[in-house]
């Protein structure tokens, strides 16, 4: 599915300083029943965000209007657990384009890159600085520059570089996905397949 190109993002951020945020928290299994990719953002962090009677939980960050923006900042080991791409869809559909953490689970990271969310892995120290900047000023802005692979706390000018492989970077910057690439390789794949023993 096509997604918007990602080049430079300057935005405020929403802090979620919890470790091991698993994909069952990002979107519980009972909300995976759709056959279309629509509306998953409504159930993002459903059980942290809403009470059993569907009233918002006042103490959850997404229900606090002072925090907003296109960047979600999570604690260590963000996105562990299930392979459900719905978790990445929910984050994207809610309006986030970038998730920052000191560590990401593999499948979540791959899913995010595949649908146009940029996972930015920073050092634990820089993550703390980001949380502190948001705590000091919820309107603090951050700049994520994909071309330069750099994230900056605008108010302090502190920045850190992040890793992404060249292929995925090119895709993100142009809104390309892997299926286009693979479709162009079909002859090569056919030859490979013919040699398989299974």
């Amino acid at each position, binding site marked *: 599915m096509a997604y918007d190109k990602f080049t430079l993002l300057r935005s405020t951020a929403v802090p979620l300083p919890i470790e091991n945020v698993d994909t*069952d928290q990002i979107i519980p299994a009972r909300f995976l029943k759709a056959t279309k990719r629509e509306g998953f953002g409504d159930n993002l962090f459903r059980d942290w965000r809403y009470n*059993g009677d569907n009233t918002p939980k006042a103490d959850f960050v997404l229900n606090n209007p002072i925090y907003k923006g296109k960047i979600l900042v999570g604690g260590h*080991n963000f996105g562990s657990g299930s392979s459900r791409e719905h978790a990445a869809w929910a984050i994207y559909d809610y309006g986030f384009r970038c998730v920052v953490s000191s560590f990401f689970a593999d499948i979540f990271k791959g899913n995010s890159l*595949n649908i146009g969310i940029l996972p930015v892995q920073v050092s634990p120290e820089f993550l703390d600085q980001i949380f502190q900047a948001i705590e000091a000023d919820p309107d603090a802005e951050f700049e994520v520059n994909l071309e330069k692979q750099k994230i900056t706390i605008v108010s302090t000018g502190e920045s850190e570089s992040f890793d992404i492989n*060249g292929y995925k970077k090119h895709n993100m910057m142009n809104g390309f*996905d892997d*299926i286009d690439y693979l479709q162009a390789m079909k002859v090569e794949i056919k030859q490979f397949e013919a040699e398989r023993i299974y």
Partner: protein
Amino acid sequence: MSNQANTLFDKVWDAHVVRKIEDGPDVFFIDRHFIHEVTSPVAFLGLESRKIGVMYPERTFATADHNTPTINQHLPVADPLSANQLKALETNSLKYGISHWGLGHARNGIVHVVGPENGITLPGMTIVCGDSHTSTHGAFGAIAFGIGTSEVEMVLSSQCIMQPKPKKMRVNVVGELGKGVTPKDVTLYIISKLTTAGATGYFVEYAGDVFEQMSMEGRMTVCNMSIEMGARGGMIAPDETTFAYINGRDQAPKGEKWDTALAYWKTLKTDEGAVFDKEYTFDAADIEPMITYGTNPGMGQGISRNIPTSEQVEGGKSTYDKSLAYMGFHENESMLGKQIDYVFIGSCTNGRIEDFRAFASIVKGRKKADNVTAWVVPGSHIVEAQIREEGILDILTEAGFELRQPGCSACLAMNDDKIPAGKYAVSTSNRNFEGRQGPGARTLLASPLVAAAAAVTGVVTDPRDLL
């Protein structure tokens, strides 16, 4: 390459690379693709919107499991959303010529139970599915891992995905396991040592006496849980135990094809001197029956131990406190004797015949505790039939347990099998995340023996006292 000492993982991975992209992932060929009703519909929609088809439908297998009821499977599925997903799987499979074992089919069951028991899963294969517990199939010396829906679409349309090659880890468990210590305890022990993110970025090979002596079903339990320490997958070198398990299964190679396959499979092991990026060795004697006390699978310990303090565990205090508060537990408490409300035996982790045999070994001659609601859910119809044939159903019935029909059930509680808020469930499944088994549900992960001991006593009990 031939003179170089290679790992099992390298041998299988390198044999499946169609193209290496500079500063990018490998284009990685997939031998077997499993699909189910939850993570495939959007992938099929993607094919339609791009106007592309399924390249090799014979390499994909569909089974319904995540969303299926575990009672009255002959009736129409009541939840319209679930029914819609099941219908989509059926329609899409039919449209593209994919073999489909839907609800009611004699070979239906949980995808990671069905693949191996029908001989679809074989050594040296690459296997993916839109489900993180696809790592189960690594028990056969396959590279098997979970993928997202975008990747499901890639496999359907090109039989390939784009994957950077993970780093390599070996986990050795040496010595002999004690009484009442099962493969589930081995994996919960390893995860408790490595933590829930300890193997992220790695593919694991399990080695050592304990795995060499383990049955295929035990190996599947261990490989299944690899993802719970962050590893994309785990694998065990195929050996005589593997070959004996596969031989004669429905879709396994036969005759001359068997001989050719066997010769290849025998080459699938890590060469002497091959190097891993990380290696751990544990002593089997240190492992006792395990139970989890927190909200990720790394938060487990020997059943006789007290809950650790936040100073004794890795990670931040606030996250730890939040976890214990969710569970309604406190630091330094004993796990033994804690009252429980539900027991769930089943899932792709522990839903095979050996698991029900183990469960029955403790239940036999005893009665289900009055305070416990138990859900006994076979992993497949074939397992269900075995339970009946072996007389296990009689033991269960005598003890006050009912057998349900196959499916993922309370492992992820997508169907009606939900643990109510605040209730405690001893569960043989794989995840104790907040709300995993239903909103507010509190999960204690354990082996079938620990689950059985809890089911008959109504409290967390050391199964060794009942064996």
